[in-house]
């Protein structure tokens, strides 16, 4: 379920996982989704945040994404350590040795 | 009061009233009783023969206490009235409910739009087999695997004239 209600600090970004692939995605400036955090829409504008909220809810309802939520950002990067990890992927993955 | 939706048709009146509190000192027949998941069954033990139907509440489908209550009511207390799993179940639990001793599941009417009666019967059809002895039921998984193996082993043995 979404924990959309944002009580965040600073510019907000919206993130989720694609239902089918499970991969992390962020909401883009045109209210779509991208697997690349660099495309993420970051905003403090209340109306835009409201809109992001609606779009994310709708995307969950039509089962494009799961578990959408707002994240705080600082200087263009996610504020929380965990969220920064989600943007760049594992620092070690055996896949890279193969 | 939600609409009564018995997934498996039984003889129960669609609008059976469910007293939420229970007075053990009464000695008349009780049409229907609703039990919370943490019910203490020893308190209603004496009245059980007078209770025609028991609705065990499932406040969340992840709360499996009701399954144990049903099992106890049937097995330890010998209750043989109607037993209904009442509340937030999902189709994938239908077989489990029957196997634990429920006769039926009741969900709120709105829920049946998402999980249609077909979804419930399909889920029930998904399994014919159960590993747990004592949990095979005609209406659900009807064959216990351990018992079936034993039957097969014994059949194999009795074919041997010297082992009878």
């Amino acid at each position, binding site marked *: 379920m979404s924990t959309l209600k944002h009580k965040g600090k600073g510019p907000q970004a919206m993130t989720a996982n694609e239902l089918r692939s499970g991969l992390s995605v962020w909401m883009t400036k045109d209210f779509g989704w991208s697997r690349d955090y660099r495309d993420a829409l970051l905003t403090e504008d209340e109306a835009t945040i409201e809109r992001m909220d609606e779009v994310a809810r709708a995307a969950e309802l039509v089962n494009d994404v799961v578990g959408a939520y707002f994240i705080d950002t600082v200087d263009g990067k996610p504020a929380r350590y965990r969220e920064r990890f989600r943007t760049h992927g594992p620092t070690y993955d*055996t896949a890279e040795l193969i | 009061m939600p609409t009564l939706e018995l997934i498996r048709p039984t003889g129960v009146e669609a609008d059976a009233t469910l007293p939420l509190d229970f007075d053990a000192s009464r000695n008349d027949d009780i049409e229907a009783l609703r039990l919370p998941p943490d019910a203490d069954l020893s308190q209603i033990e004496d009245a059980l023969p007078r209770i025609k139907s028991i609705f065990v509440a499932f406040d969340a489908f992840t709360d499996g206490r009701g399954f144990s209550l049903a099992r106890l009511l049937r097995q330890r207390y010998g209750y043989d009235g109607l037993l209904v799993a009442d509340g937030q179940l999902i189709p994938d639990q239908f077989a489990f409910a029957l196997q634990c001793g429920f006769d039926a599941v009741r969900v709120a009417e709105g829920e049946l739009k998402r999980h249609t009666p077909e979804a419930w019967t399909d889920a029930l059809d998904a399994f014919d087999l159960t590993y747990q002895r004592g949990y095979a039921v005609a209406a659900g998984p009807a064959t216990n695997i351990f018992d079936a193996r034993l039957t097969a082993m014994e059949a194999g043995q009795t074919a041997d004239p010297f082992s009878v």
Partner: protein
Amino acid sequence: MYRYDEFDATFVESRVAQFRGQVERRLDGRLSEAEFRPLRLMNGLYLQLHAYMLRVAVPYGTLRSDQLRMLAHLADRYDKGYGHVTTRQNMQFNWPKLEDVPDMLSDLASVEMHAIQTSGNCIRNVTCDPYAGAAADEIEDPRPLAELLRQWSMLHPEFSFLPRKFKIAVTGAPTHDRAMVRAHDIGIEVVRGVEGEVGYHIIVGGGLGRTPVIGQTLRVFCPKDELLPYLEATMRVYNRFGRRDNKYKARIKILVRETGIEEFRFLVDEEFKALPASKIMVGQAERDRIAAYFAPPDYANDIKAFDLSAQPEAFRKWVDTNVVPHIQPGYAIVNISLKDPDRAPGDITADQMRAVADLADAHSIGEIRTTHQQNMVLAHVRQDELRAVWDGLVKADLEDANINLIGDIICCPGMDFCALATARSIPVSQAIAERFNDHARQQAIGEMQIKISGCINACGHHHVGHIGILGLEKAGVEFYQVTLGGDATQTAAIGDKMGAGFSQDELIDGIERIVDFYMGQRTEGERFLDTYRRLGTPAFKEALYADA
């Protein structure tokens, strides 16, 4: 090892079909995420930090070679070419797609495997001594029991929605517990009764996580016939009275603690007495049927004494650390280390899986074990074939000679993969492995178990590591807390917490200081754990913080 009969096969196939239907209903929206989540979890499918993760059950850690090859196939076809052996002997894949999972489960079913109950609030995959059936110190092979429990717990109608997950471990060698039975919700030891008859010692309420507890005896001796009814009684007490108001207090260990072991035992006994035990128990005939699958292989008795002295040094070192005695003269148990210092502990590539499967076919009756130490085992190798096994392992880059040494680190995925993590754990294990990379030094240090978890859930068992490491985070910076003196065996103990945490670099230096301190203080034959117990916490704490 066990082969499915038609019932087992039909059962697992129905399960695959059911999950296929559930995925379909999820994809078209008939199932909401909230409803689907517990269903996917019951099939081992998580949503992790970056992607889904599928946890495949390796029941009691035993695999046939064709099953391991199938895991290799899954890794290649649906994932990124590798798998991860977990501390519960299962195999995880880090990158599957939801749409592919039904096909993965079908492929698994074709080799008698599944992902049932590898997650969720149900009875999880039963774990077991990886040397079962080969260990010299065993009373009885525990795998027939583990297989019986696998079947009994499978989609249990009454116990699939427990307050919390439920983990059972079994061992047939109570004097050398390699299955951590005291750190499980229920641990079962095969023991002998007063008449010499074989039965079970039942331990309850152990577990790690945020509240580590060593299990206590629930029943000193449970006759074989009574086991399933007795477990059913135990599970019913837990299902009814285990806390559901707070998921951190929902494990059976908390119920046992809050009711007290005496009262808990009383409740179980009351329940047990009221059960129709004869209708629940599984009789001798069926138990024998299962046990027959685990009968010892046809051992050869013509094996010539094996002369190590003529062998290369690297091979001798490997034999020294990775090979242990077998119950049968002329045979040996081979541990395959998945602890290459450059890799994540427990990771194995698809090619390596196939290589191990081939070695098992050629040299170990086609059977492989996974271990809770995140390694693999070939349980029945002729001593005169050890060299051939080693050659094969060298070719597959699996010849690390570090079993039970400081390089044999248990490590959870941590922040690199896990959605619940507070810090990374893989880089820490790599840094330790690198610092102590010298084989002679590892040998000199001797038995040492370092265990690392990336958060308080303790999947890396840090509480029971001789040195335990817990990764935490504060204001975006990782730091690591140390516990010392933990023990995962029959003398189980929770490690003592040291003081303030360390950065990763400080941590590695600190570990080196306590290892050096131990080396300086130890008496003849003492392991790190023994010296720690003898000298006590303050001395080691001082060494740990000497530089700070």
